[in-house]
C-alpha cells in the first residue's frame, strides 16, 4: 500500500455529506472550531451540541468509524500533552476536562472534514475565499510532498529492515535518528529541485 492511501481513502466516497459544496463545509467547520474554542465555561452546552451535531454528520457521511476514530487518536496525544499542563493550576481538573473536550471536538471537526472533502476541493475553496495565494500554495505543496516524503521514509525503513539481523533497541534508536537526519537532508535537496522546476516554468 502506498502511503497516500492511508490518508485519502475516504474523501472519495459518496454520501450526502460528501456531495455538499466544499466551501460550505470548510466555513461551517471553521465557524464551529472558533465557536467551540471561544465558548465560555458557562456555555457548557456548546461543545456538547457540537459533538451531537458531529455524531449526526458522521453517521450520514458513511465514513467508517474506525477511520474517523483512528485519525482522531493520532492527534489526541498532542492534545493530552497540552491539557495535562493545566492540571498543575487551581481548579486544574475541570480546566483539564474542558480543554480535553473542546480540543477533541475541534480536532474531530477537522478530521471529519478531511474525510468527506477531497483535498483539491479545500484548496479551491481557500482560493475562492481569497486566502493569500502564498499560503494556499504552501499548503498545496505541503500536501503534495507529504506523500513523497512518507514513501521515502517507508522505503528507507524497508531498506534498513532488509539489513537488520538482530534486534537491538539502542542501535535501533540511533538508526532512527540518522534516518530522520537523512530524510531532512533529502527533503531540503528536493525542495531546491522543486524550486528550480517552478522557476523553469515561469514562477516568479
Amino acid at each position, binding site marked *: 500500500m502506498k502511503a497516500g492511501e492511508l490518508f485519502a481513502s475516504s474523501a472519495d466516497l459518496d454520501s450526502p455529506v460528501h456531495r455538499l459544496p466544499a466551501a460550505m463545509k470548510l466555513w461551517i467547520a471553521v465557524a464551529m472550531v472558533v465557536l467551540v474554542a471561544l465558548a465560555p465555561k458557562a456555555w457548557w452546552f456548546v461543545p456538547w451540541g457540537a459533538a451531537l451535531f458531529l455524531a449526526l454528520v458522521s453517521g450520514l457521511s458513511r465514513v467508517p468509524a474506525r477511520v474517523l476514530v483512528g485519525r482522531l487518536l493520532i492527534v489526541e496525544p498532542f492534545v493530552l500533552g497540552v491539557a495535562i499542563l493545566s492540571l498543575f493550576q487551581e481548579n486544574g481538573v475541570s480546566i483539564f476536562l474542558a480543554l480535553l473536550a473542546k480540543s477533541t471536538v475541534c480536532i474531530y471537526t477537522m478530521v471529519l472534514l478531511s474525510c468527506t472533502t477531497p483535498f483539491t476541493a479545500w484548496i479551491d475553496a481557500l482560493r475562492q475565499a481569497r486566502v493569500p495565494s502564498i499560503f494556499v500554495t504552501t499548503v498545496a505543496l505541503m500536501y503534495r510532498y507529504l506523500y513523497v516524503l512518507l514513501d521515502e521514509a517507508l522505503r528507507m525503513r524497508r531498506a534498513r529492515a532488509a539489513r537488520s539481523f538482530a534486534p537491538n533497541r539502542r542501535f535501533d534508536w540511533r538508526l532512527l535518528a540518522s534516518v530522520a537526519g537523512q530524510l531532512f537532508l533529502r527533503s531540503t535537496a528536493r525542495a531546491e*529541485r522543486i524550486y*528550480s522546476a517552478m522557476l523553469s516554468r515561469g514562477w*516568479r
Partner: protein
Amino acid sequence: MRTALDVNGLSYRYSDGTAALDDLHFQVQESECVGLIGPNGAGKSTLLLHLNGVLPETLARTATLSVFGEPLVEANLRSIRRQVGLLFQDPDDQLFCPTVYEDVAFGPKQLGLDPAEIVPRVLAEVGLVGFESRSPSRMSHGEKRRACLAGVLACDPAILVLDEPSSDLDPRGRRELIALLRRLPITKIIASHDLELVVELCSRVLVLDRGKIVADGPTTEILNDEPLMLAHGLERPHILRHSHPH
C-alpha cells in the same frame, strides 16, 4: 537555419569550489536533436540547468550563453525560460501541484495564457486524457513522466531540454516516449545514459566528462568509436554493433 543555442565559454563552480563545468563552447541549430552523454557526475544535469537560467544562482553581467540570439542576462530571463522547456530527472520534483490538470496549467498561467485551451491539447498529445483530476501520488512512473512532459509542452517551448527522459520507464513506456519525442519538431537536447535512445533520436552527440566537452560530432561516428567511449565510462551501444547484416 537559425542558431537555437550558442554556448560560448560557459564555466561553473559549485558553492564548495568544485569545478562542474569548464569553459564549454558549442552551438545547437534550430530543430536539431542533440544527445548529451557522459559518465555519472560529468556535469550533464548542471549544464542543462544552465540552459534556462536556473543556474548559476546569480547571473553574470556578460552572458556566456544565448538562446535564439538572446543573451542570458537578468532582463531576458523570463523570455528565455519561456523558450527553453526543461524536463527534470525525477518526476516528483516537477509535479508539484495537487492534480495533473493544475500542474499542466501552471506554466500557461504564469505566462498569462489560457489553460482551458492548452491543457486538453497537450494531455492528448502525451496520451493522458482522463487524468486531469488525478493526484501525482497515485500515478505510475511512466504516467508521471508523461504528465511532466505535458507540463513543459504547455509552455510551448522552442527548445526542449530533457534530463534522463527514459530512466525508470518500462519498455513500452520508453517506446512511447521515443515515438512522442520523434513527433515533436522542435529543437531537442537530451542527456541520457540510454545510448540506444540517443542513437534513435539524435543526429549529433556531445560527450561530456569532468565538466569538459571531450567529443562533438555525428552520433554513429562517435558512438562507434570504442576507445573514446570506454575512456569516458561509456560503451558502444548494442544497436550499432548489429546494424550490419548478419
